[in-house]
């Protein structure tokens, strides 16, 4: 008997032996949606509060102010800025584009040598201060938002939902999905929190109501 058949047979035998318990109904009377619709002022205020609590920086930008906000976020940095191929052209003039047609061209060493990465996002959640990326052309492959030390992420107001169930519902495998809640952190030494270990040490969120696909 193969290991597969063996393990499956053991499971069936165990469930029979334990009286073949019928699966119970799952009570889903927890909050499955927020008190406010996506992008409502209350939701955005909560989102900002949570991000700041994680030591992320939040920059509010008007509809036509995204390029200027990004420029401000990158002002202190020297070195190349990398972007995914689907980011609007006018957002980061002069950026290094990571390939085209879904194939990244920058090596891990190239990414390691860059100063920052600028992307859009797939969805965000206010209650937990979470940003989700799903590998769409304006977010790029996963390595792109991982190796550079600064991540500037543009979040559109209508992408911000209030609750975790709404966030999960907005995301769809098989896209690779990364949930990001603040900069990387560790509390492994005497429970003292240190921000910035292996992922980007700085997370800057540009919060805007501009449509990110305008270009």
């Amino acid at each position: 008997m193969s290991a597969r058949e063996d393990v499956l047979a053991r499971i069936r035998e165990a469930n029979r032996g334990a009286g073949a318990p019928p699966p119970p109904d799952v009570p889903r009377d927890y909050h499955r949606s927020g008190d406010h619709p996506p992008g409502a002022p209350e939701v955005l205020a909560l989102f900002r509060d949570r991000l700041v609590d994680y030591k992320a920086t939040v920059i509010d930008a008007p509809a036509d102010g995204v390029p200027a906000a990004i420029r401000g976020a990158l002002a202190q940095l020297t070195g190349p800025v990398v972007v995914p191929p689907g980011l609007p052209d006018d957002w980061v003039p002069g950026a290094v584009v990571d390939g085209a047609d879904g194939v990244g061209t920058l090596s891990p060493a190239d990414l390691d040598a860059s100063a920052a990465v600028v992307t859009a996002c797939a969805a965000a959640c206010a209650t937990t201060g979470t940003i989700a990326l799903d590998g769409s052309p304006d977010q790029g492959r996963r390595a792109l938002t991982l190796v550079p030390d600064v991540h500037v992420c543009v979040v559109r107001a209508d992408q911000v939902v209030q609750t975790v169930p709404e966030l999960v519902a907005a995301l769809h495998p098989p896209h690779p999905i990364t949930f990001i809640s603040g900069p990387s952190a560790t509390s492994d030494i005497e429970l003292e929190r240190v921000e910035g270990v292996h992922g980007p040490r700085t997370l800057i969120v540009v919060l805007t109501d501009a449509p990110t696909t305008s270009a």
Partner: protein
Amino acid sequence: MSTNLGMPAVAPPGVGHLRGTQSFPDAARGALADSQLRRNLGHATRVIRTKRASVVAELPDWEQLRLAGEALKTATMARLDEHLERLEREVTARGGVVHWARDANDANAIVTRLVQETGETEVVKVKSMATQEIGLNEALEAAGIAAHETDLAELIVQLGHDQPSHILVPAIHRNRAEIREIFLREMPGVDPALTSEPRRLAMAARAFLRERFLRAKVAISGANFGVADTGTLLVVESEGNGRMCLTLPETLITVMGIEKVVPTWQDLEVFLQLLPRSSTGERMNPYTSAWTGVTPGDGPQTFHLVLLDNGRTATLADEVGRAALHCIRCSACLNVCPVYERTGGHAYGSVYPGPIGAVLSPQLTGVEDNASLPYASSLCGACFDACPVRIDIPSLLVRLRAQHVDAQRARSVPSAEALSMAAASWLMSSPGRFAAAEKASRLGRLLGRSAGRISTLPPPLSAWTGSRDAPRPPAETFREWWARERGTS
């Protein structure tokens, strides 16, 4: 190989880290004498407890989430075979390869072969309880493959040639000065001026590991969840070492206990709320990665999933004990446990310490191989209140104690406890015998004259006084007092 149905297949001895070399009371004695360890543990458990309590209080629907989590796990176990077959189908359809492992030996052999097929002699690892459980690092080392742990705490443990002592923060038994010494001694190229400031230590680890991440060709991970209906695997973490391992290498091998499957993507809406708040006391952990098979142009282009039994089906066979399989490894029960807080994780002898370890380890190995663990508890019930999926750990502990007593009874030589209980039963079933025994107990007054209590009794009564005092018997028995005050006869 044939299966022996009706005879639960427990985790095999001689491999992995589920069995200690000492009983819990013996191992705990050393830990209790270590005042540095007790200070570290007291501080750590207090800090996490407080953080958890404050973020749990933020959610008005926390109890509804716990009830949903419990029901989801119960429902999943009732159809575990179907969910695993679905997971296998979806992972395979998305370009992954699924392997099944009956036990630690199977899993270690599979992973070793997969690494050898890549031609590599080193791998990077994401912190994973399952791979610690099966002793994968040792198995790889025996095959000439170096496994580099990349979680900061696991790195501290590995460089210190040490064992983890907590599910979430495995190096919690080490303070900053000890960690600095370990880094100076074991980390090639480390700055000799390194201070013991946690930020400096973390940055030293970042620099040391970065080069390893960038050159790694093979990564090994565990999984927090495997979603059956989409074939998606998830790793929940904080530092970004998980993302590095799951994204940069060419080959990814994930070892997942079969109980980690959840039926649908939607079910994550419950667990992604329960886990971070219970575990680190955060609203959400910094990074969660979800991947489905292989994505062209993004991340590892070869993906293997190893599904591990190793005593889980034996646990599933017990109608009460199977609830231990609901555990999502948050470690909230460790942080609220008055026993864990004082002894730390090493005393449990297994990679799964604390209350959940005391019910999980004996079931994975068979109770006689971890017979002291079900007693490593005061049954206070704090663990049940803290458990995000409502595992009734105290009831499981009592059940395992009963199973251990039954197993002892079945042996030809009865234990001292069984003998004394039988003697007590004989004495107490006759008024005359009981009165005589009461009078005889007065002899014990000779022993406790100075302190008013008895600290040392000869065997077999030493089993009692080994860990607690016996009261000095009173000068007059209750019956004598009653007869003197109220009696007529």
